[in-house]
């Protein structure tokens, strides 16, 4: 074979392999979604949303687990979101050029990729031991700690997209920085910041490891924040590994439910971001 033919062949082979690699990635996404739909759809009924988690062998739903997940995710985002937004505001506005901001950005990026089970251990040592028992509030704090770095990052990125001219105009009117930030910059960056919150909710609503030894689980309905609370991820974990068919079915349905919610949240967030970026460039 001529040298030229070898080069062409290598090229075609390499590019074909890159197509195969992409197909492999897409195949796994499809395979996982297909498994969830096939196994989860059978349990999708109104009882899923109206009945409590059952004892082995009898029928039931996931109402207490869904409620617990929603409550802890909401409290988590209500704690982690505002703190993250304030910190992101410092990084983008007041401390944009400060030396400590470089360190904070770096530490925040590290926290962003930190293993969530470590956060669970931290909250266990911090709250569960002191309170003497597992509790929903400990679970919510663990989720807040995971949500915070996500919000810091997105808030800073979104505030940086606001045109400098708008800030200058407000400053020229005699506004103090806090006035400029709350009345000019936040409204301009509002949809971007909301997207950041959506991404943070998507990130924490499937987290299992940090809830295992903070919120633990609860077989029954509980709205007491100081007591253990049922939640979807831990219920899925326990029911999937159980030998009872009705528990396994509930685990699959819960898995389908949680994955669909998270995928919808992520896709919505991405659509908003891409429309924002397109608007910013024009």
């Amino acid at each position, binding site marked *: 074979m001529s040298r030229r033919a070898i080069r062409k062949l290598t090229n075609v082979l390499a590019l074909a392999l890159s197509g195969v690699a992409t197909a492999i990635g897409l195949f*796994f996404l499809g395979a996982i979604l297909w498994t*969830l739909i096939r196994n989860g759809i059978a349990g999708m009924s109104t009882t899923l949303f109206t009945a409590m988690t059952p004892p082995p062998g009898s029928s039931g739903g996931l109402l207490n687990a869904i409620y617990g997940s929603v409550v802890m995710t909401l409290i988590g985002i209500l704690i982690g979101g505002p703190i993250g937004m304030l910190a992101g505001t410092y990084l983008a506005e007041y401390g944009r050029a400060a030396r400590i901001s470089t360190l904070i950005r770096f530490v925040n990026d590290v926290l962003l990729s930190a293993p969530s*089970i470590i956060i669970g251990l931290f909250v266990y040592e911090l709250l569960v031991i002191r309170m003497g028992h597992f509790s929903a509030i400990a679970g919510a704090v663990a989720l807040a700690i995971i949500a915070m770095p996500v919000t810091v990052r997105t808030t800073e990125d979104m505030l940086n997209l606001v045109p400098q001219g708008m800030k200058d105009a407000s400053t020229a009117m005699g506004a103090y920085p806090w006035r400029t930030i709350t009345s000019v910059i936040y409204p301009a960056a509002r949809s971007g910041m909301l997207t950041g919150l959506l991404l943070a909710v998507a990130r924490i609503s499937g987290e299992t490891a940090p809830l295992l030894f903070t919120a633990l689980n609860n077989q029954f309905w509980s709205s007491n924040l100081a007591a253990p609370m049922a939640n979807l991820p831990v219920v899925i974990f326990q029911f999937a590994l159980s030998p009872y068919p009705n528990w396994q079915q509930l685990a699959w349905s819960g898995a389908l439910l949680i994955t669909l919610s998270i995928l919808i949240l992520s896709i919505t967030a991405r659509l908003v971001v891409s429309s924002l970026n397109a608007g910013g460039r024009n």
Partner: protein
Amino acid sequence: MNTVAAIDPHHAAGQRLRERVFRGATLAAALLVLLLLGGVAVTLLAGAWPAFAHFKFSFLTREIWNPVTDQFGALAPIYGTLVTSLLALLLAIPVSFGIAIFLTELAPVWLKRPVGVAIELLAAVPSIIYGIWGLFVLAPILQRHVQPWLIEVLGPLPVIGRLFQGPPFGIGVLTAGLVLAIMIIPFISAVTRDVFETVPDVLKESAYGLGATTWEVIWQVVVPYARTGMIGGIMLGLGRALGETMAVTFVIGNAHRIGSSLLAPGTTISASIANEFAEAVGDLYTSSLVALGALLFLITFSVIAIARLMLLRLDRKALSSV
């Protein structure tokens, strides 16, 4: 002269006060980020102290893990964590590299975004979902079709044959590595794609102008230019794999032993903690598990810190997907 409003001193003082409060609040929130990392480090070390003080250095070198006799050593989980993560890297790097090439050089414009988003969604799927999928779908397939073949074909070979001996359990180190690989593909490929896109077009066009093929441009122009960023992305994926908990807990088999075969069940640091922590009784047992957590903290945080330092030079916005 009355068209200019006189400055009300009370109003101005109020504005200054609010400015101080707001500025203080943002600074406090930003400092909380630092405090959090410090708090995690101090708390874990304090919780791990009894175990470290009792077992000293032997905690790191012993394989034994016996809650009944209160004898604990971290060697098996450390080994499992490192082997599953390296296996995951080995499988994920070529696939991620291929995906990045496809997305930057090959895909038509209309296909780039949907395919890119689909790959990123792999990262949004919660790890517990990978766990049940790995246990109920992947493990049986591996047990029935892949592992017998590995045992038969690779088992008799010298040296590497030892990695593929024993019965096909389905679950085990190999399965955990494979699931981890799928989970870190989106991270590595997203970073690699983003650094590929930072390569100036002029460089690529010069190579094309000299008659280079697409592959030659990628291998001899794009890759050398993007090397640091690619390694950063790989380290980021490694950090994810090392700390990944739920998916591994489902498929690794949870055996505190070091098997020479990749097909044998094992355990990782995070899987041990997830499985045993809530039920651990006794101070030494609990402390040993926290000590495992402290080790994991040390390992992952150094890996992630190195990764972030390597990626620091890149435009932050280009990496917003991770």
